[in-house]
């Protein structure tokens, strides 16, 4: 169970690191899709199946396509997806900043005692099957999620609908060509 988590983590982190250090934007986008698949695998590992499928649908399906469209719409020639080299000083200072933040986070995690938080009846590792034993773990079936969305979180659902509508209309307005005036002058 822990080995599966470490495997998922290594896969996700490796693909994300390589994606953010490549110079070819198409390769970066495709590797980030692999990284998002790794995150979806983590959700499956943790028992949140619905979130895993939502992650696959939204990130692997939709956001990746939007990113690829943006990459292909903002190039100047057919072969212009390899960007120029970034400045080394900025990279070094960014890595130093990132490692400092990571050190602070790791120190905070390792100093905190989580024993009080974890549920009492977590069973030890089960040999053989790769399936994690889910005892005393929270389960959220699709039925539960639907009932919660329609009862307790109905207001939040409506607000997120309004937010998505406004954001997508705003995106269309921002990205649209603003050249209707020349059209009106021409017969």
């Amino acid at each position, binding site marked *: 169970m822990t080995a599966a988590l470490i495997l998922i983590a290594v896969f996700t982190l490796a693909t994300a690191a390589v994606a953010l250090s490549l110079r070819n934007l198409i390769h970066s986008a495709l590797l980030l899709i692999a990284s998002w698949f790794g*995150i979806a695998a983590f959700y499956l590992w943790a*028992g949140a199946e619905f*979130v895993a499928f939502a992650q696959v649908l*939204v990130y692997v399906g939709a956001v990746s396509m*939007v990113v690829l469209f*943006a990459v292909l719409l903002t190039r100047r020639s057919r072969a212009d997806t390899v960007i120029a080299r970034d400045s080394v000083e900025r990279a070094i200072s960014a890595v130093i900043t990132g490692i400092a933040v990571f050190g602070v986070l*790791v120190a905070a*995690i390792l100093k905190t005692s989580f024993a009080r938080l974890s549920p009492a009846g977590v069973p030890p590792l089960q040999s053989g099957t790769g399936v994690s034993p889910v005892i005393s773990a929270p389960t*959220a079936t699709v039925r539960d999620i639907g009932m919660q969305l329609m009862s307790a979180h109905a207001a939040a659902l409506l607000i997120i609908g309004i937010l998505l509508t406004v954001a997508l209309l*705003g995106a269309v307005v921002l990205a649209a060509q603003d050249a209707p005036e020349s059209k009106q002058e021409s017969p």
Partner: protein
Amino acid sequence: MSLDPLPLCLLFSSALVCLGLIGALARSNTILVLLGIELMLNAANLNFIAFWRYGPVTSPATGVMFVMFSIAVAAAEAAVGLALIIAVYRHQKNIRLQEANRLKG
């Protein structure tokens, strides 16, 4: 102690958030900066799921609800960000962050 699943999940997500931070700070291409920010949002979602799974017992679907709404907000952010990138490209013919330094188009 370090073999407990919850600290491992937290270490995983903090490593992911630091990777996203490094990417967003080090690269000068706007699309890559946006992708770094997306990675940081994903790391926050990992934390929600980890605490939902291994934290104290709350109502059964709280963490899942939080992640659903967070994914929706992240998708809206990605759409608006990429539209902004396309608008900047139309003005500057370039999406390097260093050259997008004018407020007037």
